[in-house]
């Protein structure tokens, strides 16, 4: 598979994403500078974590107008698989590829620690390798991860199983105490209605190999690859 990792000025998890796809999972990775306007031959795109444009104005506010984002939007609209991690999630929200917005963490602190997240929907292209209800331990590192959306949108997302990951206790209970940042409905990750764009605040690329002591995050990337392989098979089976 050919995975594109977008590099904005201020991205700092781009090489971790490249490392996981290339060195851990043996895929071809193309680093895409934010000035690019054409994306050809890619199977999936990752918007990595970091502090694009210094988080000026709002997280992701300026990155959404980067030249590359036009091509990312086209790619997403044509059904291409897009994963946004942390700042990448914030950019997807600002760009309108996912509903809602991020507020400052309720505690006002920048929080960097392992958290537990529950896989609420294991039937997505990003979680297919997980069990339904499985608890993953993945680190978060953000100051603006307090997800908000209006009640109508929230209800629609709940009805469509678009809330894919929720903060929980280590044994899988979704409680207010397990919510690190005040996020609405304990939301840690959501998917669009079409099922091809996922945003998540936790960093799976930081825990995707055993040598790091935790490889829970690898399941997200494996799910994407499995789904892409399945899609290719389906495409081949379709009559010309």
């Amino acid at each position, binding site marked *: 598979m050919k995975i594109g990792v977008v590099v904005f000025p201020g991205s700092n998890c781009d090489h971790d994403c490249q490392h996981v796809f290339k060195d851990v999972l043996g895929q071809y990775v193309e680093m895409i500078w934010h000035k690019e306007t054409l994306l050809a031959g890619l199977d999936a795109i990752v918007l990595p974590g970091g502090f694009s444009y210094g988080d000026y104005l709002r997280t992701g506010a300026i990155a959404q107008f980067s030249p590359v984002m036009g091509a990312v939007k086209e790619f997403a609209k044509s059904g291409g698989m897009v994963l946004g991690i942390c700042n990448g999630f914030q950019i997807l929200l600002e760009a309108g590829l996912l509903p809602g*917005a991020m507020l400052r963490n309720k505690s006002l602190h920048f929080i960097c620690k392992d958290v537990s997240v529950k896989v609420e929907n294991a039937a997505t292209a990003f979680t297919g390798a997980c069990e339904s209800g499985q608890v993953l331990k993945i680190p978060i590192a953000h100051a603006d991860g307090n997800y908000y959306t209006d009640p109508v949108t929230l209800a629609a997302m709940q009805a469509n199983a678009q809330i894919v990951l929720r903060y929980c206790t280590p044994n899988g209970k979704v409680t207010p105490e397990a919510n690190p940042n005040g996020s609405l409905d304990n939301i840690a990750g959501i998917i669009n209605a079409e099922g091809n764009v996922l945003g998540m605040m936790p960093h799976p690329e930081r825990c995707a190999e055993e040598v790091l002591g935790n490889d829970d995050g690898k399941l997200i990337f494996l799910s994407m690859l499995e789904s892409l392989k399945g899609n290719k098979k389906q495409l081949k089976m379709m009559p010309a």
Partner: protein
Amino acid sequence: MKAKIHVTLKQGILDPQGKAIEHALDSLGFKNTSNVRVGKYMEVDVNETDKAKADAAVKAMCEKLLANTIVEEYRYELQ
């Protein structure tokens, strides 16, 4: 013309910074304060002499970039 733009979180949306400042004011003895809201203030020179055109431009830039209208509201004055 100069646009003076204020962007704040919408009423009803938790403003953690405002809350922290509210607590600080309270502990400093300012017992008659409440509902502190923190926002952003921006000044933009708009190269227009026609007020209606400048107004339309500022409104468009607020909607498109300066405010995230899902969680924020904006107001401005033109001078």
